[in-house]
């Protein structure tokens, strides 16, 4: 299915915003203004953008520690995100969640860094939708390591047994922190193993936002009609180190050559080419979109820097 101009531009705008905020934050991270672990999604933007563009605001999204892309794609507040990572009171969680638990209840998006645990929460949201006869779905984003945890197998079995409206999105970037996939899982592709468990399962190029969007749209429409859960493996590659702003190709766990190969397939460059080829956008529009995104990011950082810190009176609120 070829995607339309408005969708292509919307996807590109989302990815551009994610890329600019992450590149900019990575650039200033050494200033030590942000004192919290940050997991950048640079290189992986197409997956969250593509899937979330096919969702409604009232649908639920659960994500992992590599949360920025899903957060912004679902419509999470940019100023709130940047202030949150700065630990400021104006952060979306008042400085309590930082980057790894980044969430915005206004857009029904929640994240946390315990790999598979939020996959179960997505099933719970889906159960609530089903009990209330709402036509919503829940989407769970997780990395390739999450499926190694028992809770994933339990969640998948539960979703299948109860035929829940859940989309499982595996962002397979081939590494769990610094451990490659082949040391952790059998060679048979993930999506084939999932098909063996009885779930509708497919693999898609996770660097091609148009393709992710069209595949996700198709499966989401099916889920809304009652197909039950779907598993989508999106193959991609993380550019930066597991956590933090740096590149880490000097370390033995991965190869510079792999990075060079993947960067040629950069999700943004890929979408730019597509838009130019389809005459959806010219170089001018692409430049304007990027300038606009960068402008928003700079403004958010300025706001975060000026924002007040949380203090004593904030510490013990909302525990029970």
């Amino acid at each position, binding site marked *: 299915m070829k995607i339309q101009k408005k969708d292509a531009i919307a996807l590109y705008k989302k990815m551009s915003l994610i890329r600019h905020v992450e590149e900019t934050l990575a650039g200033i991270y050494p200033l030590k203004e942000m004192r919290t672990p940050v997991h950048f999604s640079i290189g992986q933007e197409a997956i969250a953008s593509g899937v979330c563009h096919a969702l409604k605001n009232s649908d639920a999204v659960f994500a992992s520690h590599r949360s920025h892309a899903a957060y912004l794609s679902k419509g999470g507040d940019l100023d709130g995100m940047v202030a949150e990572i700065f630990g400021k009171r104006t952060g979306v969680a008042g400085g309590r969640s930082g980057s790894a638990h980044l969430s915005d209840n206004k857009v029904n998006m929640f994240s946390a860094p315990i790999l598979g645990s939020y996959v179960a929460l997505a099933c719970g949201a889906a159960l*609530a939708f089903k009990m209330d006869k709402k036509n919503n779905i829940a989407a769970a984003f997780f990395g390739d390591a999450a499926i190694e945890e028992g809770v994933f197998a339990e969640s998948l079995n539960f979703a299948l047994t109860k035929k829940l409206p859940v989309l499982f999105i595996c962002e397979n970037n081939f590494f769990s922190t610094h451990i490659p996939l082949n040391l952790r899982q059998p060679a048979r592709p993930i999506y084939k193993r999932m098909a063996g468990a009885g779930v509708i399962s497919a693999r898609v190029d996770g660097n091609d936002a148009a393709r992710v969007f069209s595949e996700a749209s198709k499966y989401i429409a099916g889920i809304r009609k009652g197909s039950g859960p779907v598993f989508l493996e999106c193959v991609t590659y993380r550019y930066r180190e597991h956590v933090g702003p740096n590149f880490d190709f000097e370390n033995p766990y991965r190869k510079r050559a792999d990075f060079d190969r993947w960067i040629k397939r950069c999700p943004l460059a890929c979408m730019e080419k597509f838009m130019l080829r389809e005459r959806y956008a010219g170089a001018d529009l692409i430049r304007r979109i990027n300038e606009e995104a960068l402008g928003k990011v700079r403004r958010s950082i300025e706001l975060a820097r000026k924002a007040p810190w949380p203090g004593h009176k904030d510490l013990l609120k909302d525990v029970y």
Partner: protein
Amino acid sequence: MSIKKSNVREISYSAAISEALCQAMAADKNVYILGIGVTDYKGIFGTTIEANKRFGRRVIEIPASENAVTGVAIGSAAFGKRPVVVHARNDFMFLTLDQMINTASKWKYMYNGKTRVPIVIRGIIGKGWGQGPTHSQSIQSVFMHFPGINLMMPSTPYDAKGCILTALKLDSPTVILEHRSLYDSTGRVPENMYQIDIKKARSVLQGGDITIVAVSYMVREAMRAAMALKKQGISAEIIDPRVFNPLDEDAIIRSVRKTGRLMVCDTSWVSCGVSSEIAGMIAEKAYDSLKAPVKRIGVKDCPAPVSRTLETIFYPDHRLIFREACGLCGKKADMDLVNDPVIDNFNGPY
């Protein structure tokens, strides 16, 4: 609340739980139950049979997936539901600790109070009948340690119903540990819906010589001991905190200031447990009132054994409470006063 004696029936602890669940489900369509065996013919020792009969679509049988199902409960609660997850043995709740501690207890705080996950977890403590190492633990200390989880342990039918109805009105996750040995005990329970004051411990017995804080089933043992203590001239005050997280510290401090002596009787191990916490709290906040060292009573420092002779030694009972209380009060214990027969009306199996 005050109850007029004439108006109030006596029902069992398990019937009180069943009634609370049914009333809560009738009053709020978002309340639902999920657990292993909640729809089978035994219905969690009879507590979910009536709910399943009346609200079948909202009583959900689950695969043996304690961890994921706790996550399911949390996810559904974030979207408006009020789940009650049931574990026929609280030992299986160890499988849920990631979701309970990493997610449920922190949800409200880490998302700055903007959303809430009002889940209720019922876990049942087993004791005796040779259930052994993995089916007769009392896991309260875990849920007392972490901020953000309410922990309730009802010891009467009144509180068994009240805890459920109260928990289902709270904003934060609540663990209710019920005790299987109390299931057949009876007591006055109003027919209407009511709440308990979760900030207030329950005063079971007033006295002036020694404060006995008793946990769950140990309230019963403490009461039996108190009757014998009275004959020995010792007036015991018994406090049933019933809510352990957050704990009504003031009630215990006030009592210790009055009696000058403290004994804490737990259904679990002493080390790093409820009794240690309360002893530590009193050492910090009411040390100057103590006339004697604090005494902690719990099960022996080994896993629960199966053989009945070993079980008898393993579990603390009213005799131990009596002897130790006499010791704290400087009196020689007349053990003939606690020679009453062991209550044994349980015919198994669990």
